[in-house]
């Protein structure tokens, strides 16, 4: 699998709710050891939401810090800030990425 198989993909819950597209993928450095580098980056969460262009420009970036630029002129767009979907909710990566329903609304699955 490649990163590009995830980026831009539609994310749909098992209940059929469309969450938006994958804007970015959050990695955490706690995977297996690799060569002289150290711990590998493991996929932690999919950052899902709308506003592809703004996300790409880094204007709706979640971490680690935001460009000052978005503070004022792009302020209105921040309401549509993308949300992280933890990887353990991913059921299948295919034509769309199917994930379990939001555990904060139902009991956690899979």
């Amino acid at each position: 699998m490649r990163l590009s198989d995830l980026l831009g993909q539609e994310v749909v819950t098992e209940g059929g709710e469309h969450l938006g597209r994958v804007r970015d993928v959050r990695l955490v450095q706690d995977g297996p050891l690799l060569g002289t580098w150290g711990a590998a980056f493991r996929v932690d969460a999919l950052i899902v939401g709308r506003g592809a262009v703004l996300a790409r420009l880094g204007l709706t970036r979640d971490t680690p810090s935001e460009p000052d630029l978005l503070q004022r002129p792009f302020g209105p767009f921040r309401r549509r800030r993308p949300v992280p979907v933890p990887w353990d909710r991913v059921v299948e990566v295919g034509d769309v990425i199917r994930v379990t329903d939001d555990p904060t609304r139902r009991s956690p699955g899979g």
Partner: protein
Amino acid sequence: MSQGRRSRLPGWHGGWPGGRNGKERDIDATILLRSEVAPARPRGVGRAAVAIALLVTCGCIQPVGPARTSESYRAKATTTAEAGISAAESASLVIDGADEERLLPPYTAVLLSELEDDAGGAASTFSGIQPPSAEADRVRADLLDRMADLQDALAELRIDARRGDLEALADVRPALRDAVDQLEAFVEEQG
């Protein structure tokens, strides 16, 4: 060709391709060659680029186009005469400069030959326009006559300059003055 040429610039409002990366997965490069792949959103951009390139390269934007009516024919005649006056006025500045020994011979020759080309180009573009009426025929003959006088004067200047004989330029001044007066009178009549 003036009316029909406002090209529609197809797809100009197509906008930029969005973030559809990763639409096709697990397809290697060879399959990519023939298979139906993601919707090609950059097409709008591509078409616009082609349209612009065409616009630029075929130079379809020209100052003098065809004439439908006597009115527009006369407007084109005036534009042509004004181009002639512009070249003549430039040339008379060159004569002044040469008189006061402020110019270098090669520069003078190049500039005068460009002015000659300008006048000749304007005249030949105008002569290529179909006159819409008998009255326009007379306008045409009249203007081309006056332009020919100007072209003769400019040619004489160019010949002297190419020979490095900048002092001789002043001799052409009366003929040039005369040509300008003729063209100015023409503009007056038409205007």
